């Protein structure tokens, strides 16, 4: 089952994991990745996530469908928050279920790698001193995404 959401609201990780395992027939493993706004010594206050409404949902749905096919997933959940999120706040939830652990783990890895550089989201950082900085794309993220080509 595919579940793709783009929303400002916080997601409930426990409920999402339960949802992935509830539909339990044939499921041996569930893998989840959750990304959050990293708190650090640099004075970051919040991230604002801009996206391309319409294209975002389309790309995430295609990505989820590709992961299901490629890794024989049973369930696949992609939730990405948009808008302003303070440090420590969850940003993204990727969840997969499959008969065996290897597929679920690989599926989650694939999804987060591809989503980082292939879905139309842009992060703008806001610091305590008022600075606002658009996050630069990282070459390492491009490489990680390309490793699944």
């Amino acid at each position: 089952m595919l579940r793709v959401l783009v929303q400002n609201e916080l997601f409930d990780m426990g409920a999402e994991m339960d949802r992935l395992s509830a539909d339990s027939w044939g499921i041996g493993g569930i893998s989840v990745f959750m990304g959050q706004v990293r708190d650090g010594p640099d004075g970051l206050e919040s991230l604002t996530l801009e996206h391309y409404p319409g294209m975002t949902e389309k790309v995430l749905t295609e990505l989820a469908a590709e992961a299901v096919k490629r890794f024989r997933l049973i369930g696949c959940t992609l939730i990405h928050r948009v808008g302003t999120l303070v440090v420590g706040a969850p940003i993204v939830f990727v969840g997969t279920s499959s008969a065996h652990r290897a597929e679920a783990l690989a599926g989650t890895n694939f999804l987060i790698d591809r989503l980082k550089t292939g879905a139309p989201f842009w992060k703008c950082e806001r610091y305590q001193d008022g600075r606002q900085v658009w996050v630069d794309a990282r070459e390492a993220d491009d490489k990680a995404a390309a490793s699944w080509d």
Partner: protein
Amino acid sequence: MAQDVTIFYFAALREQMGREKETVSLPAQSVTVEALVMELRQKDVGMDEVFAASPRIRVAINQTLATFQDTVKPGDELAFFPPMTGG
């Protein structure tokens, strides 16, 4: 009107362009993104400067990632934006 396409700009590019959306007329029934951008930059010095300073601009046609060699047709929805940074 029949030759119009809608263009969206996102993130830093939206800020640099000073607008998030505009409608432009195609110079021909079917042109490449590259030809359209060249035409628009000739008419708009601000856009020319923004695009000259941003070598990694990405394009989507009808909400699908595309290349500057792909073809734009009347009624298409275009979008230009920097490399994506989600997740």
